[in-house]
């Protein structure tokens, strides 16, 4: 089982183990050597795929488009080429009409070596994700890698129809290191791993509803969740956001900020939600999911 840890696996391993065997075909593959000229100019290492794999595949027989970010290359950060591959994949969804687009997010956000190109790319990806969903095609974010989903990719993740996370996955905007650097260690101690996990980790995000599924750190678990979601959207097609649904979301987010107006630790959220909050970090994913269901 450990050999199929999602957290430990490379992006290529995650992708190939997730989709149906021998169905993946890659667009703009490493053989094309579309490396980042901006990294090269700064004498920084480059990669033939610029840290992202995009292509088409099948999942339980359904046609999908899929992207996987490689956290081991520059923290999965988005530069010009990397971002363009993801945007191009989303554009392709409009003509190809897959059952879903899967984004295996593993990224700290904008790649600083090409910061302006990265920021604009993230904005283009945000618009593209919204366009795809407005056309009725669901986009799923899978978050369980070592770099999590931060910065602009944290926003992109939350634009998706579904967010599947593992406990080890992290989802937020500014990284703890950034907050510590700017605001001081008393605001956010980035070396306190348990605290970082209670602020950004999968169980907290699932409790708040920002993640829609919590699964084990196991590639087959992510695969099963993605298949279930595809089947659900096949029977109940995605309805693009309306004024009514966004007003409801506004009310929910307003309530969250009112109820937790001074909260600074995930424990406070668990205490409000669970009878025995102190045991939440110890629960297995199955136990946690059952508790969550009971408390709803």
């Amino acid at each position, binding site marked *: 089982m450990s050999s199929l840890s999602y957290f430990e696996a490379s992006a290529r391993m995650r992708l190939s183990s997730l989709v149906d065997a021998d169905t993946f075909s890659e*667009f*703009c593959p490493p053989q094309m050597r*579309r490396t980042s000229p*901006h990294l090269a*100019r*700064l004498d*920084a290492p480059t990669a033939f795929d610029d840290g992202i794999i*995009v292509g088409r595949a099948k999942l339980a027989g359904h046609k999908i488009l899929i992207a996987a970010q490689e956290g081991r290359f520059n923290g999965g950060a988005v530069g*010009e*080429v990397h*971002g*363009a*591959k993801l*945007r*191009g*994949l989303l*554009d*392709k969804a409009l003509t190809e009409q897959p059952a879903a687009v899967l984004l295996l997010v593993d990224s700290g956000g*904008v790649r*600083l070596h*090409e*910061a*302006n*190109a990265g*920021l*604009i790319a*993230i*904005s*283009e990806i945000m*618009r*593209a994700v*919204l366009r795809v969903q*407005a056309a009725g095609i669901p986009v799923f974010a899978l978050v369980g890698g070592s770099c999590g*989903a931060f910065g*602009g990719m944290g*926003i992109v*993740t*939350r634009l998706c129809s579904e967010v599947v996370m593992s406990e080890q996955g992290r989802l937020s*905007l*500014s990284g*703890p290191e950034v907050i510590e650097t700017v*605001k001081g260690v008393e605001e*956010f101690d980035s070396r306190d791993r348990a605290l970082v996990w209670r*602020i950004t980790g999968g169980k*907290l*995000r699932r409790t708040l509803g920002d993640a829609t599924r919590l699964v084990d750190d196991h590639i087959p678990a992510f695969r099963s969740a993605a298949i279930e979601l595809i089947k659900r959207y096949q029977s109940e097609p995605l309805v*693009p*956001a309306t*004024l009514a649904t*966004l*007003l409801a*979301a*506004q009310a929910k*987010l*307003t309530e969250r*900020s009112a109820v*937790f107006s001074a*909260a*600074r*630790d995930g424990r406070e959220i668990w205490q409000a939600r669970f009878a025995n909050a102190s045991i939440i970090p110890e629960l297995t994913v199955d136990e946690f999911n059952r508790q969550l269901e009971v408390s709803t």
Partner: protein
Amino acid sequence: MNVLFNRLFQAHDIATEGLFLKGHANTGNQDVAVIGTIDHAAIDIQLALKIADAILDVVRTDVGNPPRQIIFIADTQGQALTRHDELLGLNSYFAHIAQSVDLARRQGHLLLTLINGEAVSGGFLAYGMLADRICALPDAEVRVMDLRAMSRITKISLEKLEALAADSPVFAPGAENYWRMGGIHEIWSRTDNWAVRLSAALDNIADTDSRADIGLTREGRMLAAPIAQLVAGS
């Protein structure tokens, strides 16, 4: 702010509340909604809720009527940096703004951003960057991070970054760099008639995202458009 509004509009009724502003104005030939932030606001959860609420309010008000154009006045130092905001999911609040902007676009509201002051990183991504047309006022500062901080994090010397910044728009701060890369459509000058420029900009709005193509035409972002097309055409 009134000095700015007087230069932009024939008439305006725009109220500020802390770091947030909203209201409506007339450009001479049409009524527009105005939403924005001031004083280099750090966008936190409360501000994000106000921005999204104002956008949804314009959409709701215009149901059954011709959709007004929305002008975002962006002035932000970036996202708020607190543990509280991260705990509650500031990224989710920003995504909610983006979904509200997208709804407005789909309902036929054309969207224009005016950068007045600073447009930085996540604060700029949150709403200003999502408009159909983005204009920068003179002295607008646009960046992800200043070169000193970038040098610390990337461990590339400041001298090297400064030298490369001179002929590459790709990482150095500056509205001009974003213009070359297609991230900003227009930069206005101090001596321009801003009301005329605003009317012309509103006339030129298209609701498609052509920033990558513009970056290619202006030779500031040569790969984004061809690589996206390569993938989309695979």
